[in-house]
């Protein structure tokens, strides 16, 4: 195998996808948590 020249677009793609997936997924957990908390507050105040 020879030396690979360049290839920076793959490096950026890798880091970009990683950041996007981790950030997006973490944010979705955060949103779901908020929704569940709100639902619980609503049910508690309804009694």
């Amino acid at each position, binding site marked *: 195998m020879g030396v690979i020249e360049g290839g920076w677009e793959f490096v950026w793609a890798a880091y970009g996808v990683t950041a996007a997936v981790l950030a997006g997924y973490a944010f979705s957990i955060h949103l779901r948590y908020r929704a569940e908390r709100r639902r619980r507050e609503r049910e508690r105040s*309804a009694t």
Partner: protein
Amino acid sequence: MERNGEMRAYVLGAIGVALLVWGSWWGLFWAPRESFMGDVQRIMYVHVPVAWNAMLALTFAFACALASLLRGGWKWDSRLEAAMEVGVALAVLLCILGSIWAKPTWGVWWDWDPRLTTTAIMVSAFAGILALRHFVDDPVKRATWSAVAAIVAFVDVPIVYFSVRWWNSLHQLQSSPETVSRAFHWPLRINAFGILFLMAGMIDLRARVAALRLEGELAPPLPESGREGVR
């Protein structure tokens, strides 16, 4: 769920992100170029940490499944759900990164590397168990069955790995990015801990989501009140 309870998850996540930013900066701009792979090798600084942590998450899921079956208790079921979902997310990311690595290195988007292929199969297996959870309404059955399925799936992993490795070895010899020389250790380690902390935070928060949902399912029905219009 007290206020400080959930803060732990966010703090863990914040530490993780900080470490990841540091490690990635180091890996992208300070670490030297590798002799054969050139700059493409920098993908390793995210690929390997994600791989380690994906396996860790699914191993933790296996432990939660055992605890859920043997000791019972709803918190293990919530953790199982969280660990499986986070594990699947990381494993999917791992497959994408594996593709991005394979193209400039091997010229194809997928080279049937045994570890990556096993990961893809694990994604299907555990995504299937998450789907199973979706279709079971009884919380007790859901907890028991997903624990059973998780145990069977995890026990299968080494068999899958070996079978794919034998199957593939007949076709091509390949080396995977395994040996990393000393100069490249630090960004790798920092990113590995970064993802570890972030993952711990995500599992923690996701388990709370599962626990809250369960609480809603198991709670006795509310008494009739005059507020039917409010929902």
